[in-house]
């Protein structure tokens, strides 16, 4: 018996003539956590889909315990012992947690004819308990918060008896506490002999959890080596193929809040947030920190007029925004880059051009018709500023990588020359290179005087960009920190509800 559980040999895969994977070979050992790193578009997702039976390779083979295996579908992969947690949501919003856990591999009685609902329910509760979650398993998933939905997906993946567990960005929408629990579970599984292939853009997690790391770049295998032999800069260099600076502290402007642009007073929405008061000045970045579910996005949505609130006052440039009036907010010069860019930020089937000009159509309209020449000029200018390849201008937004999509959403708002911008998790699921570009973009905008409210779970990012940071905890402002001197520990301390300390491992 060798120590190798999986051997990947000379995998090739191309889509419409474009190579997604080229000549990729590496091994996964028994009972190791192997991190899989690479920028968006490096081929990680393709590799994972091949390993889990969603896609079939064009060439090459996979050996599982020294035997060649061919996964024609997900069931074949699961039968061999490969389970996967994919990056895209793979849960069913209309089914409850129990059905989500077991659909496709139901526990049955009466010879496979009937569902054994009691047993499935028991196993679901057990799996969720291992993840430290108490979830209402009777209601459809769409009625649960995003993080809980994500946990159900994770529970599904880890609950099947697998030899290789593939996790693609499992912590992307989890809070710090949930991330800690998940990483603990990953280590437990490894100690039980399960191999884990772990994809994450959060490099801290890679160094904290992985034994070895494999780097892909442009569909090719760069290296597989012990994580101890690398440091962060080196790993990023391997991924990007060039040096990328980690977010460095932005030079903060002078007395910015003397000229308030966004003013929020005593904003209250029962059950969501209470008495939120802050201002964002011209050329200032105000960070909004907090755990998932603390009410950050809800505050942003209320300010922008998507959701109603019970009491309080919002004004932009001294102009009062009536509750629930998104058009008034836009007219006053406010833009929102939402957390869920695919659904709320972009119209995916529409072209890049149409997406960029969407919020500026009023300004582009002459006599009820869109002035296409002016539109073209506007979009070209934005595309150039955003560093998106211009050949993509007629492509549909759905075909763009996550990083380019995010730049597009930001570009949409820049096109209508806003005075203030709310960014909700602007770099979630965005690769290292694109992240640096998004940060650069934010810096340039702020220098030009844009007032920015930044919501982020990525604490280094928040600390690097913010002038001031407000920390939300259970819908209230728990404290205000100076961005120049604050530390991650200070933010976490304020963000955690009383006497709830994260599980330290």
């Amino acid at each position, binding site marked *: 018996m060798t120590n190798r559980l999986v051997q990947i040999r000379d995998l090739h895969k191309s889509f419409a003539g474009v190579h997604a994977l080229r000549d990729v070979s590496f091994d996964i050992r028994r009972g190791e956590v192997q991190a899989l790193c690479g920028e968006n578009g490096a081929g990680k997702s393709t590799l994972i889909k091949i390993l889990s039976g969603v896609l079939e390779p064009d060439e090459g083979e996979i050996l599982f315990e020294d035997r060649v295996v061919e996964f024609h*579908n997900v069931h074949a992969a699961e039968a061999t012992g490969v389970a996967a947690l994919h990056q895209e*949501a793979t*849960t069913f919003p209309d089914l409850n947690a129990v059905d989500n856990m077991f659909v496709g591999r139901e526990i049955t009685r009466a010879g496979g004819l009937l569902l054994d609902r009691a047993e499935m329910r028991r196993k679901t509760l057990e799996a969720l308990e291992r993840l430290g979650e108490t979830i209402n398993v009777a209601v459809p998933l769409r009625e649960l918060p995003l993080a809980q939905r994500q946990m159900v997906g994770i529970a599904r993946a880890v609950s099947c008896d697998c030899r290789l567990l593939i996790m693609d960005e499992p912590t992307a929408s989890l809070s710090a506490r949930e991330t800690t629990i998940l990483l603990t579970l990953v280590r437990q599984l490894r100690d039980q002999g399960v191999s884990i292939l772990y994809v994450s853009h959060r490099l801290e997690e890679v160094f904290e959890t992985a034994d070895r790391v494999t780097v892909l770049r442009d569909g090719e295998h760069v290296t597989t080596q012990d994580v101890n032999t690398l440091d962060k800069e080196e790993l990023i260099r391997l991924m990007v193929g060039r040096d990328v600076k980690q977010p460095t502290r932005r030079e903060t402007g002078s007395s910015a809040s003397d000229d308030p642009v966004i003013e929020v007073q005593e904003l209250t929405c029962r059950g969501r947030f209470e008495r939120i008061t802050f201002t964002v000045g011209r050329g200032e970045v105000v960070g909004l920190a907090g755990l998932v579910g603390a009410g950050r996005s809800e505050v942003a949505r209320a300010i922008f007029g998507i959701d*109603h609130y019970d009491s309080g006052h919002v004004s932009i440039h001294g102009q009062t925004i009536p509750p629930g009036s998104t058009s008034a907010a836009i007219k006053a010069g406010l833009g929102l880059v939402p957390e869920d860019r695919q659904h709320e930020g972009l119209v995916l089937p529409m072209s890049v051009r149409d997406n960029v000009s969407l919020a500026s159509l009023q300004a582009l309209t002459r006599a009820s018709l869109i002035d296409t020449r002016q539109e073209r000029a506007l979009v070209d200018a934005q595309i150039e500023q955003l560093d998106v390849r211009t050949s993509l201008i007629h492509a549909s937004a759905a075909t763009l990588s996550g990083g380019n999509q995010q730049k597009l959403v930001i570009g949409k708002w820049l096109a209508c020359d806003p005075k203030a911008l709310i960014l909700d998790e602007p770099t979630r699921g965005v690769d290292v290179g694109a992240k640096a570009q998004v940060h650069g973009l934010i810096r340039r905008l702020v220098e030009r005087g844009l007032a920015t409210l930044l919501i982020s779970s990525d604490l280094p990012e928040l600390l690097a960009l913010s002038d001031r940071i407000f920390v939300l905890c259970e819908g209230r402002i728990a404290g205000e920190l100076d961005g120049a001197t604050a530390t991650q520990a200070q933010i976490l301390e304020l963000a955690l509800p009383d006497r709830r300390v994260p599980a330290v491992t």
Partner: protein
Amino acid sequence: MNRHLNNLMMLLRQREFCLLTLVGATVAFATAFDSAFLAFGNLRDILVRCAPTAIVACGVMLVVVTGEIDISVGSLMALLAAILGVTISTNEWAWPTWAGLLIVLTFGTAVGLLTGALVTFGRVPSIIVTLGLLTALRGISTLIMGGENIDRLPPGLESLSKVGILGVPISIWAAAVTVALTAAIISWTPLGRRLYALGSSLHSARFAGLSEHRLKLFVFAYTGFLTALATIVDVPRLPKIEAGIGVGFELLVVTCVVVGGVSIAGGRGRLAGVLLAVVLMTMIRPVLTFMDIGEAGEKWTKAIQGMFILLAVLIDSIVSRQTRRGTPP
């Protein structure tokens, strides 16, 4: 908003509650006119009228739950009735009744399978496929019947409508069995769970390894089979098979499914709501007849059906807007 109003809103959010209220109000209204409305015979007649719609709605509901639609069942019913007439009428081929019934059931299922194959393997949207079939199947049935009615049906067929088991007409039995079977599929079998999963997220279903083809073939074949069953229990009620049988039936069924609270986007919906909608929609005409307003009753049926549809949709929209405010999504 005070607590009582809140509770009322929660109740109103349940489509079944709204429909039950409407059914109750309609019954009360009719009974106020004439207490004979509640007579056993009358209620039985209403249920008999409901039976074919309820049977086919069970199938179409599952089709809609997977995110597809079937608007061809009216024409399929006409074709199946024509086939039944041609095979067993003593004017035509005069086959034994059981053979005609068997052929109808087989043929109905086969057409359903064909529909499913066009949708899944042909990758044509089901609305287009069934729109085409709606016209095509009607055309074939017209060709078979030559625009005439088919009469001289064997007495064996007519007795099907007369026989009852334990005093209950056979069409009601057929509907009851269909409903029980469909309910069992929905809540007790892996199949039912997978249908809802497929409609809830096609994307996630692929990652869970569900076979989209097989599940969709099943729902269309099931609908085809149930349409055949509905034809068999409905045709014997009349002495002859008319050329216009089943016209508008597909829309009545889809209306019941949607009014019953099944999401047209797939993934959501309960059988109880659909059945209540069937009862509500079917009841309108008998109630109007009972009001004894003659010709006018006939003419008002569609208008009132339409009003109920709009009412159900409107209540839904208002209530969901009220409850969404101030509570997390």
